[in-house]
């Protein structure tokens, strides 16, 4: 039996196709202006990778920001549950998931079966979300995926004082004009990001094992700082892209519901 999960976020859309207990294919794209367009494109790519067609899918669950607008989904589930379930399936010892999305960040506590126990979310303020890092990368004049590697080379991270993305952007602009080292600024930004995330994580408390999902999980500097700030180890998803965890969770729910 074949199941699918589709996660339409604010910046990226992801699809995962599973056959019984294995992942057959997945996709990750930048969103289109409308959620149903993003979902279709993501799903088409995953289907073509798996050499399948939409009719082959027994059940599909959608999640994420645009989840209610996906015509080919049989049902939709909140991304909180999907991230929790998906992360737990990959690493069953996980009890806390920190999902850092494009325009929000969440801390999710799960039980030993991957069911959500508690959560805290920020979707009002851009500091602590993927957008913040996008803005900072642009300000520093580097590609987003180079921000992490740039930061880890720093020995003396700058101290970021502000908490608002726009204010921090201004702070960084001033530092640039003062001739501060780019990797030091990138490191300071990573620390600021971890501090902002901590205010959300604290609300649910940390229980090990902990994992990070979403695109920002690939920023090694942010993850290192998060480890320091929270005082715990953070497990990596070795073979699976942390950005597709939500879609994976949706696919798992699809299996359950079929």
């Amino acid at each position, binding site marked *: 039996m074949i199941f699918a999960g589709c996660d339409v976020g604010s910046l990226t859309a992801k699809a995962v196709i599973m056959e019984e207990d294995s992942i057959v294919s997945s996709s990750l794209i930048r969103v289109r*202006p409308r959620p149903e367009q993003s979902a279709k494109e993501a799903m088409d790519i995953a289907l073509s990778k798996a050499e399948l067609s939409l009719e082959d899918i027994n059940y599909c669950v959608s999640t994420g920001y645009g989840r209610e607008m996906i015509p080919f989904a049989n049902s939709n589930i909140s991304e909180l549950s999907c991230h929790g379930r998906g992360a737990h399936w990959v690493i069953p010892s996980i009890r806390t998931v920190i999902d850092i999305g494009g325009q929000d960040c969440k801390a999710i506590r799960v039980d030993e079966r991957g069911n959500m126990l508690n959560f805290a979310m920020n979707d*009002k303020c851009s500091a602590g979300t993927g957008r913040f890092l996008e803005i900072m990368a642009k300000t520093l004049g580097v590609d987003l995926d180079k921000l992490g590697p740039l930061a880890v080379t720093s020995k003396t991270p700058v101290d970021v004082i502000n908490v608002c993305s*726009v*204010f921090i952007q201004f702070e960084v*602009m001033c530092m640039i004009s003062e001739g501060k080292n780019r990797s030091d600024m990138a490191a300071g930004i990573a620390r600021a990001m971890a501090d902002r995330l901590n205010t959300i994580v604290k609300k649910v408390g940390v229980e090990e094992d902990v994992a990070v999902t979403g695109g920002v999980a690939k920023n090694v500097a942010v993850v290192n700082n998060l480890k320091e700030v929270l005082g715990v180890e953070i497990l990596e998803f070795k073979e699976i892209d942390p950005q597709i965890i939500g879609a994976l969770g949706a696919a798992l729910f699809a299996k359950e519901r079929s």
Partner: protein
Amino acid sequence: MIGMGCDVGTSATKIIIMKDGTMAGYDITPIKDRPDQVVEKSINKVLSKTGISLSDIECCGATGWGTKFLSFDHTEENLIKCLSKGVHWAVPTARTVIDIGGLSSTAINVNEKGKSMEYRINDKCASGSGRFLEMVAGALELKVEDMGSLSLSAKERVHITSQCAVFGESEVIAHVNAGREVADIVAGVTYSVGLGLSTLIKRLGVQKDCVTTGGVAKNVAVVKALEENIGVEVKVPHLDPQIIGAIGAALCAQERLKV
């Protein structure tokens, strides 16, 4: 007495020269990068406009975050005190001042002597700041100066839900993609800025006359939205509202000399 006042803000640098109690001349220059160079250029512009030379300046008061870029002798003046004094000089009946700057906004209650009795600052969050308007202007490829009048021509104001300036910018782009009229979108943005500011002021308590200062005070739509939400007429000083802080800085510096 010839005094200089400098207000080096996050969006622009404002320099004024006062001579014997009246305004001799001023300059406003936006800061994009290299604030140190902008400050120097701006000062030179004022000096040449007024025909006064640096050696004639008896005192200089400076305020704002960027005072460190001034290369000559000056006194550091507290921005709230500068705004209070500056508004009192420009509009002696003022009892509430609302300064809307590049990144931060301040609301002040002053007494009949121009002394600050209480104030509230928003310098943590860029929602409702001049920078937010600049971001939207950039996204819509407009000039910031045109946003006010464009708002007034709107047919149906778009409702902007985000508090955050960054998310607000994304929301604006989404509305453009959905085919909404630019004027309607801009009207929604200026309204949300005015609405956000009104919260700051209401927490302080409005007393008439209410006067607004800062670059954003030149946006007629924001001022209108502010008025609507606080229920009190909001006056904009006749001279450029953006230079009020700098005037106050000059007055503070002059006061020190008298002591």
